[in-house]
């Protein structure tokens, strides 16, 4: 049998040297997560915006966007697409508000976002979203998406560059997977906030695209409450 040794790149693997070819997508990184409670929802997102490589463009760009008094959108991925998506949703929601005389409900926004993403599936928004807030019954709720609009309603979610670091933590601490003794009782929003802070701090430990500061947002019946939280600047 012939051995094929190729310690150096073979001819077909040699790529022509390309100088500054246009790349329409950039990944600006960042981590967002959401945890829904019985009558609240906690959403967190770091505020680092990377340049697609090792560089940090800015340390204070918020990834969380308030859609209504009961709903926020947390997005990681490409900042330019994120902004376009936010602006689009903002416009459509203000139209809805004027025509119907009330803001769109959170589940309706969740479906609407899916439609918006799917509509652009052949040139997708490079965005990874979480819609979170409280629904018509006042219960905390969250939806996660892929870039082309597949979505699922969940109790907790995380997206972005630190997703892999955060999601096992949430599985263990929120869903209580594989735990022998499950502590009873409802988690208060203060407890959820402190847990979410730990989660995003953990992501910041290992993920180079997550850090600087975090927005911690609590959505409850009284509206949307913002808090700034410091992460590592390294």
């Amino acid at each position, binding site marked *: 049998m012939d051995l094929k040794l190729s310690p150096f790149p073979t001819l077909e693997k040699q790529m022509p040297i390309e100088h500054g070819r246009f790349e329409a997508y950039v990944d600006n990184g960042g981590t967002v997560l959401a945890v829904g409670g019985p009558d609240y929802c906690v959403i967190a997102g770091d505020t680092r915006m990377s340049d697609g490589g090792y560089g940090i463009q800015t340390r204070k760009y918020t990834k969380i966007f308030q859609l209504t008094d009961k709903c926020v959108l947390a997005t990681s991925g490409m900042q330019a697409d994120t902004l376009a998506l936010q*602006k689009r949703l903002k*416009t459509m929601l*203000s*139209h809805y508000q*004027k025509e119907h005389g009330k803001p769109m409900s959170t589940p309706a926004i969740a479906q609407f976002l899916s439609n918006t993403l799917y509509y652009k599936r052949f040139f997708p928004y490079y965005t990874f979203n979480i819609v979170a807030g409280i629904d018509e019954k006042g219960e905390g709720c969250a939806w996660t998406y892929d870039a082309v609009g597949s979505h699922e309603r969940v109790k907790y979610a995380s997206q972005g560059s630190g997703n892999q670091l955060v999601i096992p933590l949430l599985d263990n601490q929120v869903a209580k997977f594989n735990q022998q003794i499950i502590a009873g009782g409802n988690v208060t929003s203060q407890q959820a906030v402190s847990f979410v802070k730990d989660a995003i701090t953990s992501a910041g430990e290992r993920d180079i695209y997550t850090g600087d500061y975090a927005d911690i947002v609590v959505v409850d019946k009284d509206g949307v409450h913002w808090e700034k939280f410091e992460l590592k600047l390294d």
Partner: protein
Amino acid sequence: MYRNHYDSDITTFSPSGRIHQIEYAMEAVKQGGAAVALKSKKFAILVSLKRSSSDLGSYQKKVFQVDDHVGIAISGLTADARMLCNYMRNECSNYDYVYESKIRIERLVTKVADKHQLHTQGYGGRPYGVGLLVAGYDQLGAHIYQTCPSGNFYNYKSISIGSRSQSAKTYLEKYFEQFEDCSLEQLIVHGLRALRETIPNSDTGLNSKNVAIGIVGENQPFKIIEEENAQPYLNLLENEEPVEMQI
């Protein structure tokens, strides 16, 4: 029904230099329920008289929110007004999308007036049969504008349109110099009093059912006050003192 020559076609002038269809459209504005607009330094408000076709029906909407910083009151064909309101909302959200700031009131009014004008020059169309009072607040302050089916628009300190609006104008002309420094509440009471002038004595007068108030100003997004929310202001109207107390 009388008929003039040069009546049916909006693209033909009469020998006296008039376009009758446009003038008839302006006439439609005068048939609608009255609407009053007035402003102080920090606020612009709209006060309007709603009508219902019968006791069994609801009252026709007269005041529309266009954006957070601008709203309109209408007189004439409500259906036409809804089209124009939609157009204005679109222009506002387009501007907001591109510049992340609110469109200046004068520019918005210019756009909607241009749309009016376009419909006075095409064959086979008709002018809009509605007049708008536009109240808004932007970086240049509070503004009141009136538009006509002809495509003209006017900037006012205060104005009224619609049926018997002359009586309201008379009231406004008497008091407009005081408006500048009015509080929002005083301004609304002035508006209601002006509007009251347009109601024939035989009628029931102003009540929470037939009044709609639109307010906008500094740190005050456009808001429509009607039904039970209008009652406190109507109560103020009963008690004439606060307005007369003006310096």
